[in-house]
């Protein structure tokens, strides 16, 4: 008789575990093009202790465990490739502490980005965190497990650069803390203790993030978006260089798409500008347009497409519905900013070949140190042919990323294999040792970052 299900019920409580197909179905499907992969169970724990109990159970039973937050990776990263327990962490949704003066928040990993933003807006209106472009139901923990970035990526880097401390449940069930919280101090810094951080970007393959202290940043009252446009994609890297040198903006994103027609074969740069007063904003606008970008305007190769627009959250689900098909998936990559023109050209070519209107975007990370460049491919969920086209386009794009000297971000298994094949052998060997050390029974999200 199956003892796992009753054990899960015992751990998480009646109703929060299931082995029924009706529940498993949803967890077998990713929002992107991945083929379904069925879990055998789903459980929704409420505490780190429950997570630990489940991992101990899984080790005893040698059952895979696949953690997920919002399930929004689109790359099938939370699909149970080898069955097992889908661990839905969204019940771990407490905002535990916000330290206003220390500018950090301690939250459980299942807190959604939307919830944290709303909470800060209401309770701490001078603070914000870096919210990713994903729908607001994406979770803090999920985003960190894949090295996400958000709308403060330009000034402050990856979201995983904004961590002051973490609580992790190791694959073997021990609950560990990292950062100042590990020595009983507050959750205000990750440094200067010895670095044992082996969990970010692993898609949960080395442990489950259950708590995190996230850095918060000043939220300025006056906020707007300016849009600059050029036709020549080769200008984008230098424009971003100028703007990152100025260093006075928040989010910096360059994008182009075939639909709507106005943006076709044009490159828009959205520039988020904030300030505590209109005067501060105007000073920034002046420095942007009259100092840094004036030469492009006056020579007629660049133009101010819009000023003082409300900053709006991207609604990615709308991208999914351009063709009334309810689906899209993208290849994300971490690229040098200088690769923008080639990324655009190669992406537009792939899209055209697969009969998909092209959509590309590059978000600046740090002071122009890199960008997250994405190629999106919409498909019609009800039309297998379009799904196939999108899938093929995604694979071709993964190859382009490698060709262009970039790194695939949150790669699906296909992309992971490309990366592992190219990886330095010593690094590969270290990854293998780490994985074996932390997860001796290989129960954690097997199939992801799997080093043979």
């Amino acid at each position, binding site marked *: 008789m199956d003892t796992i299900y009753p054990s899960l019920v015992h751990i998480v409580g009646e109703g*929060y575990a299931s082995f029924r*197909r009706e529940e498993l179905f*949803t967890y077998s*499907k990713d929002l992107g093009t991945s083929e379904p992969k069925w879990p055998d169970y789903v459980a929704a724990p409420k505490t780190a202790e429950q997570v630990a109990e489940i991992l101990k159970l899984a080790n005893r039973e040698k059952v895979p465990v696949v953690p997920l937050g919002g*399930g929004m990776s689109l790359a099938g990263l939370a699909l149970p490739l080898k069955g097992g327990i889908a661990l839905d962490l969204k019940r771990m949704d407490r905002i535990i502490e916000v330290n206003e003066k220390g500018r950090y928040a301690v939250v459980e990993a299942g807190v959604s980005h939307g919830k944290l933003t709303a909470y800060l807006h209401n309770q701490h209106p001078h603070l914000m965190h870096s919210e990713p472009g994903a729908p607001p*139901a994406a979770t803090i923990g999920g985003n960190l497990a894949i090295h996400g970035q958000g709308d403060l990526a330009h000034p402050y880097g990856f979201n995983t650069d904004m961590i002051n401390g973490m609580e992790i449940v190791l694959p073997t069930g021990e609950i560990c803390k990292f950062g100042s919280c590990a020595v009983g101090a507050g959750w205000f810094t990750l440094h200067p203790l010895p670095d044992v951080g082996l969990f970010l970007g692993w898609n949960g393959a080395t442990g489950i993030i259950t708590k995190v202290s996230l850095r918060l940043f000043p939220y300025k009252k006056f906020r707007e978006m300016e849009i600059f446009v050029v036709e020549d994609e080769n200008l984008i890297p230098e424009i971003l260089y100028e703007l990152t040198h100025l260093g006075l903006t928040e989010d910096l994103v360059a994008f182009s798409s075939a639909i709507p027609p106005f943006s076709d074969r044009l490159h828009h740069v959205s520039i988020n500008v904030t300030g505590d007063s209109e005067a501060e904003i105007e000073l920034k606008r002046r420095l942007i347009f009259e100092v840094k970008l004036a030469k492009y305007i006056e020579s007629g190769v660049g133009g101010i497409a819009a000023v003082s627009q409300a900053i709006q959250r991207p*609604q990615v*689900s709308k991208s999914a519905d351009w063709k009334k098909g309810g689906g899209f998936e993208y290849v994300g990559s971490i690229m040098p900013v200088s690769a923008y023109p080639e990324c655009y050209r190669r992406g537009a070519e792939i899209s055209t070949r697969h009969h998909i209107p092209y959509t590309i975007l590059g978000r600046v990370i740090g002071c122009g140190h890199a960008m997250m460049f994405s190629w999106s491919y919409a498909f*019609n969920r009800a039309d297998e042919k379009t799904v196939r086209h999108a899938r093929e386009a995604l694979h071709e794009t993964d190859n382009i990323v490698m060709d262009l000297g970039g790194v695939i971000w949150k790669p699906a298994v296909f992309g992971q294999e490309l990366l592992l094949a190219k990886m330095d052998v010593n690094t590969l060997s270290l990854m293998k040792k780490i994985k074996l050390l932390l997860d001796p029974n290989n129960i954690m999200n097997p199939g992801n970052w799997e080093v043979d």
Partner: protein
Amino acid sequence: MALAEYQYNDVIHRCFRCGYCKFPTDWSDVTNCPAYARFRLESYSAGGRLWLIRAWVNGELEWSEHLADIVYSCAACKNCVEKCPLSFNEDIVNMVTAAKNEMVEMGLVPRGVKKFLNNVQLHGNPYGISAGRRTGWMEGKSYPAYQGQEFLYYVGCEGSFDTRAQSAARALGDVLTNSGVSFGVLGEKEVTDGNEVDLLGEDALFESVAEKNIRQFKKAGVNKIITLSPHSYNAMKNSYPRFHGDFEVFHYTQILADLIKKKRVRGVSGPDEEEKITFHDPCFLGRWNQEYNAPRNILKSLPGLTLVEMPRNKKGAACCGGGNFYTDLLGGSEESPARIRAREAAATGAGILAVACPNCLTMLEDAVKVEGLENRIKVRDIAEILV
């Protein structure tokens, strides 16, 4: 087995499952879908449900009682409709109802639903109580029978049979009487409004109920209707015109707000001490019919009461789960929507939780009791507060 006839075959795949539908207007949490708040497994979210329905319609998943429970766990609160950013959002609840239509057609509905529908068919009410006892709510009061007065006061099934809701029905009868409103009631002749029958997917029964009511109203010369329940209001206002039932339909809060404005509501006294009151928006008054102001205007006009809002209000209000009270699919847990809402109401510091719907009244009063909050907050229908 695929269901070629399913009405939304060309749309249902467009749900991306992005999860906007889980949030209230202020984005405060992912728990504004009552079924998802209760179960916290993806299958119970609006998107999960649509994906499941699509899988069933396509033959990817077989029907099961559990599947039917998940489909019927939708409380039809329309939060998803409010929050979904896509152009098909208006049809989300319709897609669920259409799946229920198919299940009804095939005789594959949860037991509670079957019982509900049978009772309506046999007795004209979901409680299975004989129509002869429909006047029990009046408890010795002698509200006039409808004989061509300006308004028909349509009490509805909860107000007629549920002991707690009966008190609200009487209170409204008294307020209307005291305010000099010309009204009459149908008494034993009243039958269910059919709102839930429609949403449970039994469209043939709904049609017959609606036509029966319309015939009766027309025969009696009814032009204007006041309903106690927003559910009745919704059915009569939005669905009856499909069957040529074109009446002027009002929820009682709309009538009373107007009467208060005209200073025609008499004898209303406030509490001895200044008291805070909060208001729970019924889904069928709020999101279904965009009436957010009338009940608030009444409450704001009352002496000694200060209206404090719950964080989730108006378009973003959390549903009490009453939209499918008949199945009890959302009960039995401290995360039952009514209990969550009761805690939210108590957290405002209000001494009174005002409601404007007999379903909400019974749901929330029970929840307050189970939560042990009776000493902190009382649940009152607005009509009761006015008496």
